[in-house]
């Protein structure tokens, strides 16, 4: 981890179109799956993935180190997902009973997990998905998002607590 921190500043500028193509080929599928866990639909996930690569290209340069390059994309995707989740939360109508609309007949667990993740604070949702679905260690998530490891662990603890409540609200059973 210390070695990676020391290499943190190394980036490639003047990136050619073919390099962006290579970046896309190498990471698009993973970023898309990450986005799908947080998005309300496949279309929304594709939009988030597209937004991630647009923002990456707007930066004009990319990290040299392959691990940091991957974290860099995840960081962009996470910020985009948080923005989107925040916007969607503003518009969500929750019935006065406090329970959300019952899941459609046949909603599988994956759908319920996605809905519950969208119902908790976006920073906590993304931390849970990065840790549990993407398999990053708390220290890697901290490095990726530019926050302290304690903050990551706090988001995981609070996120788990909120997820348990949210999963019950959307009709899931733990």
């Amino acid at each position, binding site marked *: 981890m210390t070695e990676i921190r020391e290499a943190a500043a190394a980036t490639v500028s003047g990136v050619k179109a073919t390099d962006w193509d290579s970046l896309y080929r190498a990471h698009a599928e993973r970023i*898309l799956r990450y986005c799908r866990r947080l998005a309300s639909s*496949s*279309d929304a996930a*594709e939009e988030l993935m597209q937004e991630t690569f*647009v923002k990456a290209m707007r930066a004009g340069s990319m990290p040299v180190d392959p691990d940091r390059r991957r974290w860099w994309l995840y960081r962009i995707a996470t910020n985009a997902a948080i923005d989107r989740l925040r916007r969607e939360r503003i518009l969500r*109508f929750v019935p006065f009973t406090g329970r959300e609309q019952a899941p*459609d007949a*046949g909603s599988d667990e994956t759908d319920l*997990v996605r809905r519950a993740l969208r119902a908790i604070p976006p920073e906590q949702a993304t931390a849970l998905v990065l840790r549990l679905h993407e398999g990053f260690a708390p220290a890697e998530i901290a490095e990726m998002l530019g926050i302290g490891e304690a903050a990551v662990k706090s988001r995981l*603890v609070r996120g788990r607590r909120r997820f348990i409540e949210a999963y019950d609200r959307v009709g899931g059973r733990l």
Partner: protein
Amino acid sequence: MTAHADGLILAGPDEARDPATELFLEEHLRECDDCRELSRKVGRLDGLIAMPERPLPVPPRSSANARPARRVIAIAPVAVALVAVGVLAGTALREWRSANDVTSTGAAAERTISFDIKPISPWRTTGTGRATLSSRGDLVLEVSVRGPASEISRPATDPLQPNFIWHLVEGTCASWERNEPGHSVIARWTLVPQHADAQDFRYVVSKADLDPMTRPHAVAAFRNGGGGPLYACGDVASFATSPGASGATATPPGIVALSDQAGCPRTQATDASGVRTANGTIGIVGDTYWSSAAVNDTVLLVRRGAALGDTVGLDFRQLGSSAPASLVSYSVPATLRRTAWGEVAFPFGVKPIGFANSCWRLFVDGTDSGIVLFVGP
């Protein structure tokens, strides 16, 4: 249950514990039912979140030479590919419609019926459709369905293979679900879906193959091969044009009076490119009607002269009072989407206004666009 045990349990394996703390937790879990239950739930939720997402088809990249060399167009292969696979039903349908523009010769006006594609239990594919009887007498079907990948496409195939064989049938969905005899198949076709879990298409049934279309028909998705089950079906009302028994005035040619609009004057006019618009400056790519079941659909709004980096403020003001909200407001950033109006569009979701039988007038950046949207039953 103590707060300390709560925190330890919710931290999961991420928090390093010394042997004394580990021993405390083990003993506590033996004694405390609540904490044991919490520990079980944490284990379960970790497993649920860790469940792998189903693989999604990554949009293929088109040739970089297809676009002029601009820095932002460095991502053109992504954007063009997304359009090429018809990510959004409205975009794909608009392109097909403009490529196959059907205009009235004056001999007979076009007539259009919108319908919902409903799942047939236990299947889950749903969608919307539109049937247009053209002035030439052909039937143009425009359908958009979403559902599990295991229903819409054949599993683990590359390229995608269709699981559905679509039919235009005489009779109702209920009669086909019951396997009632005496109903004929008018046409059948298969088309490769754009995504494993989504299919949008426009299909023309020639006048030569049609019956008078004055009785109920249905658009049905059966399994492709092996006499498979009926997955989803949409009832298409008859195109009979004789005045009703009540003696009500016949529908003027070119205007479709949909009984499900409940008086909502939704925008149907389009410009030459097929974009629905009232003022020529703000438009909707695709339809201005959605079923309330289509709450997860995304709609493309376009604006003349829009550029990447722009953001529009959308105000949806309800006409009538069927929905609990009178105003829905939010902002949407531009995203790369090639449409007839340019390179960018503003996607917004149906969900915030997705109340059954609700009617909305769209204001953009505080200005009335003149566009009215209808969410049906």
